[in-house]
């Protein structure tokens, strides 16, 4: 599989999911991610899979719950308002420990908002958008190739931890085209899931998929089990990219498509002799705290650049823990930061005017 293909982000996710063995997809239309369910509707029947356009997002996420409980490799996708509707289901899925992959191609909010790119669902994705103490792994690709690679990883991680995994993109990543390569062998055999409800002929005794624990002590024990699992995820699954951080006076945090804009601004800054570096979280949860703690020893200041009014900046502040100033620059509503404006912000901070 060495051939490069020019694909739209949404379609590339679909193809990557199918190659990762996903055979079940449940969704409901919303811009800017419609090409993904459309792709699945066309392709899944060709490989013996099922795509259902549900009557609502709520129905779709509960179909995911059912399919995941029966051991299927399953995906759903939506964009911000639709992902809000899925939150109850996500909490149930996390509680019942079911592996699945959820794609959010974030658009401007709050409310119905707009259809242009945004990153203002960071809190919802990383802090538990539904009720109760639960966590999802949240993966934030910055290019279509990385998105394709992360889709494959997302399914594996979901199975490994029996936990929902979210791919957090944005309208730009969904709509744009870039060359992608599907490097890995197609997944044909899924790992055995002894806990799945596949019928008592297939497993000894009853398998129960449930999130209801009416006895407080049993619910607390279940929660403690979940927290131990989340602690393992936090210890093992942190991913980030760091560029030019070693000698940087200013370390910038940015994820997803915004990180590319920051990278362009950083390269322009370097040409002018400004020492700017970038830490790009690839997992938004678990957040790469240590990378920021290390950088705080040498950098003079931090800046978080986001397509939001300032959400990830709080995690940067927690990691830097008051050792150095942490600034913020963001655009909202579907407006995209320009490399020129980001460079100006660098200059203000480094010139002591911020």
């Amino acid at each position, binding site marked *: 599989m060495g051939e*490069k293909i*020019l694909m739209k982000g949404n379609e590339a996710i679909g193809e990557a999911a199918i190659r990762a063995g996903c055979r079940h997809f449940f969704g409901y239309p919303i*811009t*800017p991610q419609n090409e993904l369910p459309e792709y699945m509707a066309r392709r899944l029947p060709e490989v013996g899979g099922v795509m259902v356009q549900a009557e609502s997002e709520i129905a779709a996420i509960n179909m995911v719950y059912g399919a995941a409980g029966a051991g299927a490799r399953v995906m759903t996708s939506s964009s911000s308002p639709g992902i809000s509707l899925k939150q109850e289901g996500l909490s149930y899925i996390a509680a019942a420990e079911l592996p699945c992959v959820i794609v959010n191609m974030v658009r401007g909010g709050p409310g119905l908002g*707009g*259809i*242009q790119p945004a990153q203002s669902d960071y809190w919802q994705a990383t802090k538990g958008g539904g009720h109760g103490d639960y966590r999802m792994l949240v993966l934030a690709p910055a290019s279509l190739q990385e998105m394709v690679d992360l889709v494959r990883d997302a399914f594996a991680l979901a199975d490994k931890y029996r936990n929902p995994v979210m791919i957090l993109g944005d*309208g*730009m990543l969904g*709509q*744009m*085209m*870039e*060359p992608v390569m599907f490097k890995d062998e197609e997944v044909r055999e899924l790992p055995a899931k002894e806990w799945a409800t596949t019928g008592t002929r297939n497993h000894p005794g009853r398998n129960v998929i449930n999130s209801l624990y009416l006895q407080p002590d049993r619910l607390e024990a279940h929660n403690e089990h979940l927290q131990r699992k989340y602690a393992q995820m936090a210890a093992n699954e942190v991913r980030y990219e760091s560029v030019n951080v070693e000698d940087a006076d200013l370390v910038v945090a940015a994820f997803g*498509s915004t990180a*590319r*804009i920051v*990278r*362009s601004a950083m*390269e322009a800054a370097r040409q002018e002799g400004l020492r700017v570096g970038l830490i790009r979280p690839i997992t938004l949860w678990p957040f790469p705290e240590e990378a920021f703690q290390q950088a705080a020893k040498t950098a003079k200041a931090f800046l978080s650049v986001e397509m939001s009014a300032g959400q990830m900046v709080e995690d940067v502040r927690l990691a830097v823990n008051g050792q150095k100033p942490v600034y913020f620059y963001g655009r909202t509503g*579907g407006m*995209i930061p*320009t*490399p*020129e404006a980001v460079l100006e912000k660098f200059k203000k901070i480094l010139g002591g005017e911020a």
Partner: protein
Amino acid sequence: MTHEMIFAGFGGQGVMLMGQILAYAGMLEDKHVSWLPSYGPEMRGGTANCTVVVAEQHVGSPVVTRPNLVVAMNLPSLDKFEVSIKPGGLLIYNSSLISRQPGRNDIEVLAVPANEIANELGNDRVSNMVVLGALLGKRPMVKMESIHAALRHILPPHRHHLLSLNERALASGQALGNSN
């Protein structure tokens, strides 16, 4: 050299396809490319546009606010994007449909009577390929063979009888771009 380009026109003029073919050809030559369509409210009446980056190095921002090349297929596109071109950049406009002269004197300007040339070739709908040819005449960032190969990939097989017409349109445009 990083080519940061915006292709704009009204729906049906083939601006999205023009950009996609150029990006595809760049990919075939192992260049780094990105293609980003407008999909927002500006598409509803007025200009559809796409941003294409063709680069030797990785593509940073796929969003370009100061392009070094703009293709304007209609007047609203010229009005919107002429001001954004970097000094020293190139503006290619469709003089068949745009009667006003561009006002900038710090950029290079190429007028292409795209619809007239396309009509002479027998089909108005290849005006986009005339302009893409002119672009390559001026800025040979990819080889014409790669554009031909990209066309074969992107056009569905039942449209392949139109390949030679498209190739002639590209050649006419390229000749114009070369000589101006």
